[in-house]
């Protein structure tokens, strides 16, 4: 399978703590994206990191990419209760001209107030 796999499956932390989620994949990618999904809602794009990039920041989010290890991590600093959601990594590789993100099963994050 070419999908990314997130780790851990579930994460429970206290507000103010940092949350780290990891994603591993198997084949070379064009880019890797992280999404958030609140329960029963749509997917919200967080960050895209290209295969030639190693780190990107967006507010309290930091994403790293290690193509040699075929892995990525999403760090949420100073977490808030509102960060409670499922987080998915999606690996994107060119396929017949369509860049199809393939989603993993996600990490369920619970941030306790």
């Amino acid at each position, binding site marked *: 399978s070419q999908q990314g796999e997130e780790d851990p499956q579930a994460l429970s932390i206290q507000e103010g703590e940092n949350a780290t989620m990891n994603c591993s994949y198997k084949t070379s990618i064009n880019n890797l*994206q992280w999404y958030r999904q609140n329960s029963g*809602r*749509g*997917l919200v*794009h967080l960050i895209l990191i290209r295969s030639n990039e190693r780190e990107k920041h967006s507010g309290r989010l930091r994403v790293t990419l290690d193509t040699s290890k075929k892995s990525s991590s999403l760090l949420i600093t100073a977490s808030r209760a509102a960060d409670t959601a499922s987080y998915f990594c999606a690996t994107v590789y060119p396929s*017949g001209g*369509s860049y199809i993100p393939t989603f993993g099963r996600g990490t369920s994050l619970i941030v306790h107030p």
Partner: protein
Amino acid sequence: EPEVTQTPSHQVTQMGQEVILRCVPISNHLYFYWYRQILGQKVEFLVSFYNNEISEKSEIFDDQFSVERPDGSNFTLKIRSTKLEDSAMYFCASGQGSGTQYFGPGTRLLVL
């Protein structure tokens, strides 16, 4: 900020009935996608659409499914004869190629 919209938000149908799920992608996007998410499971790719034709489809996207872009704005997913296992959240997305895909809020389909 432009966004992808989907209608209806919820659809309940009887097994064997046809359903059409509608999406309005972001206007300057060229690539359009449908995904589904069965309750509690991961998001699964169904089909991508570019230049008025299907560019990629998954094994899930069998003959019961079809997509259409009937005009310059709408992008539809039709399920001809729904089955119980078609019950899921269906997401439309649009993008400009290899970059970010923007997802709609989804249509929750329940087949009884």
